[in-house]
């Protein structure tokens, strides 16, 4: 079983598109569900930290896989 409910590939996209798409995706999810985001923009690490801080959603993990940045965000209740 995967540790996320939905996935968003924002590879190749520049700030703020990954954030915008993540916001839209999360708005369609249930509270407690987790979104996995893949991005290639190095600045997205700080962007998603700021995004979660502001929205109250939880940044469960933030790391690199195969040269891409991968984030798990759980929607706040």
């Amino acid at each position, binding site marked *: 079983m995967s540790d996320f409910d939905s996935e968003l590939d924002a590879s190749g996209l520049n700030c703020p598109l990954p954030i915008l798409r993540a916001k839209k995706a999360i*708005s369609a999810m249930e509270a407690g569900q987790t979104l996995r985001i893949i991005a290639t923009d190095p600045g997205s690490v700080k962007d998603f930290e700021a995004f979660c801080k502001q929205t109250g959603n939880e940044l469960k993990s933030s790391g690199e896989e195969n040269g891409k940045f991968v984030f798990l965000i759980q929607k706040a209740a």
Partner: protein
Amino acid sequence: MQHRLSGPERRESILSAAQGLFASKGFHGVSVDEIARAVDVSPAILYRHFDSKQTLYNAVLEKFSCQRQSYVDTIVNHGTRFEDALAGMTQVYISGIAENPDILKIELHSLLEGNPATQAFFQNRWKSFTDYIEFGLNEYLPYDIPNREKIILSAGLMFQGMIREVLIQKCLQPQDRLVDLSLYELSHELVTLFLHSIGINKTQLSRKARISG
């Protein structure tokens, strides 16, 4: 007696002087000696803070790369409608340049100088807009319209040219005929014209022109 600057203060004074000189003369038009003279230090002191002119130049550019946080704020606070996010991003971008037109001057110099690293920095700033516009139009323009791909690519270019020109006109060479319109009013009108030109009006925007996840 002259106040002796701390390390961070000295670094900041060098950065500030370098910014002004790079803005007026470009990267190649300024020497390390000239920057050192402007802050009344020896080149050796300057090299203690920045090991090369390129490092110093990059540090000046780095000061201007703080807009990301504002873009995130815009997206969080403005909703996900195409027009709202585009207007919010434009506001952030022009505010940054209105507060410090040196970045626009440095960009224009870099276009002529052809330094790949610098050009990448500025292209990346515009890419936030062109990516956003291309992505949005790709989702919402009907698939059967003629020259669809060309329209999408041209729209991003059109927006970039429009905003860059209004910044030049208002921040670098104020024109009498535009004196009654503020930078913000002009950019608002241009964004509205842009949206009309790509076939999006406010009615359509509020109904369907949203970026989906």
